[in-house]
């Protein structure tokens, strides 16, 4: 069997030879482009020596023939084996529709900004609708505590709270260590070693511990919520839930949001303790502030309101993270691709909202001199 395929012109006859199959097509295509086509009114194609042909080969032959016909030549094909002729016939009868694809891709110049505005508009509306819906579901649950799925809620407290203890503990411990190290350097210069307590205590309790925990949970739980709900949507589980007469809000959103609202403040308290402990260790090692001194100073230097402010922010962070995660989950429409995109968005938006909310809190509390 001939392994090569050729197209050549001899005495105004186009000879096609060899295996017109996919592996040979690139070479054939290049050959066809550099070929000096005969300039006779009628051009004969001789394809008697074509040993093999697949759809691609048939298409290429068809293109050669129609190309010449387009230039005003008459063509006739000879010697093609019947089975290949059948294939050629099949690709022949197909309507050419190169335009359809291109037309769908062609866009007006103002199209993309308009579409962006439109999609922002609709997504803002959808987000608003979701906030409304979830608030309603939330109020209804509070009014009827029996309708809350406590079992599922406790499961989320475990998954998002208890299981997150090691990682949040480790991270806030390290942050406590870092803050104490940075502070120790400066404080030693002034000989005001004991102020390490103020530095570590206030910054951790009021700002850093709640923020670190919230950011961590946004990455850990917010993404999980989006992916879980989104996958349920893709696999039609969400539709099944609806048709079984169960509210997805009640089943999926309320337990997650409430569960996280319970878990996050608890995690924050834990993070406060571990973070301050990290600071204590460095204070002892670097500044010779003993544990007893540290704790004694802590009581007078760090008023309880700092702890309460930090703790008070945690439930709001939790609600933001859970709602963003669930909302993004419900927005997933298409397939696998969409799940990835919305999961990423849920994390980014979750962290964004947490930090913005924290900044607003700082400004407001500063005005009120707290």
């Amino acid at each position: 069997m001939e392994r090569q395929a050729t197209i050549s012109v001899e005495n105004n006859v186009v000879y096609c030879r060899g295996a017109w199959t996919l592996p040979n097509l690139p070479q054939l295509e290049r050959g066809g482009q550099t070929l000096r086509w005969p300039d006779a009114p009628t051009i004969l194609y001789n394809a008697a020596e074509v040993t093999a042909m697949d759809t691609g080969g048939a298409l290429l032959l068809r293109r050669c023939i129609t190309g010449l016909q387009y230039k005003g030549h008459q063509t006739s094909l000879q010697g093609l084996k019947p089975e290949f002729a059948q294939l050629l016939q099949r690709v022949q009868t197909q309507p050419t529709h190169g335009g359809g694809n291109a037309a769908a891709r062609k866009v007006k110049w103002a199209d993309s900004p308009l579409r962006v505005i439109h999609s922002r508009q609709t997504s803002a509306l959808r987000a608003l609708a979701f906030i409304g819906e979830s608030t309603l579901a939330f109020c209804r649950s509070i009014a009827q505590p029996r309708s809350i799925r406590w079992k599922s809620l406790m499961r989320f407290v475990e998954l998002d709270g208890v299981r997150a203890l090691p990682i949040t503990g480790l991270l806030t411990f390290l942050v406590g260590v870092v803050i104490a190290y940075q502070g120790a350097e400066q404080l030693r210069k002034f000989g005001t070693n004991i102020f390490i307590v103020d530095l570590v205590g206030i910054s951790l309790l009021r700002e850093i511990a709640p923020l670190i925990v919230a950011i961590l949970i946004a990455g850990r739980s917010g993404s999980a919520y989006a992916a879980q709900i989104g996958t349920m949507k893709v696999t039609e589980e969400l539709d099944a839930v609806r048709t079984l007469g169960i509210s997805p809000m009640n089943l999926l959103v309320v337990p997650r949001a409430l569960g996280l609202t319970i878990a996050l403040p608890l995690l924050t308290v834990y993070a406060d303790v571990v973070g301050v402990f990290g600071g204590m260790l460095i204070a002892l090692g670097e500044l010779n502030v003993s544990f007893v001194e540290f704790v004694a100073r802590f009581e007078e230097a760090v008023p309880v309101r700092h702890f309460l402010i930090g703790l008070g922010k945690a439930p709001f962070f939790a609600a933001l993270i859970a709602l963003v995660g669930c909302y993004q989950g419900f927005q997933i429409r298409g397939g696998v691709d969409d799940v990835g995109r919305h999961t990423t968005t849920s994390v980014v938006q979750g962290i964004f909202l947490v930090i913005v909310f924290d900044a607003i809190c700082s400004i407001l509390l500063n005005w009120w001199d707290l």
Partner: protein
Amino acid sequence: MEISRRSGAEFRGGSDDISAPVIDVSHVSTKYGQAVVHEDISLSIHRGEIFAIAGGNGCGKTTLLREIIGLIAPSSGTIRLFGIDSRQLVMSDGHPVHRRFGVMFQQGGLFSSLTLAENVAVPLREHTTLSEALIHDIVAAKIAMVELPPESAAKYPNELSGGMRRRAALARALVMDPELLFLDEPTAGLDPIIASGFDELVKSLKHLLGLTVVMVTHDLDSLWQITDRVAVLGYGKVLGIGTMEELFQSDDQYIREYFQGDRGRDARKQAGRRAAGRDA
């Protein structure tokens, strides 16, 4: 009609021997822990036939298919695809023999981030250096060949109906003009008109492109109407191999139940009527 359309084992891998079986499964057993899926399965599939693997739900049909195409390795025994041990396929991605067969998965397996046309073009872009224009033409030809409307080419998989997705997957499986086509439950969940249309399509493509078709199905109508030979799996074994008529006459309890129920008899009558209609 034997069409010699192949050129060069070096491009496609495996042997080009026309007379050897395309697929040779010998003494294959599959176990997942304690659960035995297959026990000592042997069968061979020849060039140019439409071969079906039938059997009840959960009897390991799809598992056998996945073993043949080298997605999973059997616990023991060997499977040869064009003379190549399928274990080699399990071990190495991108083996050249992959270009010699196409697979249509049950859910389609279309890439959701690509349009239909881009999906169909993936193998061409990966494995050939064709010009963009020719790729476009081949893709359009394949889309037309599976009787999808041309305007669906720019759509994404999630915008297509189930039947269209099935056809799109078939177009992608066919785009490299493979010698061997695997279909996993091609007609499951399709309405009877589309399902029988799909059967006709497979049959006509087989004749046009000289394909060998291996399908997993329990659609009795498909079995009667388009298959040349059928293997019935049950209890982890091959209970019978043969033409539908042979299996219909079988003494095996399970095969009798499978084919001689009301549905089986109806499908047979239907196929007989069709054949008679075609002759007349």
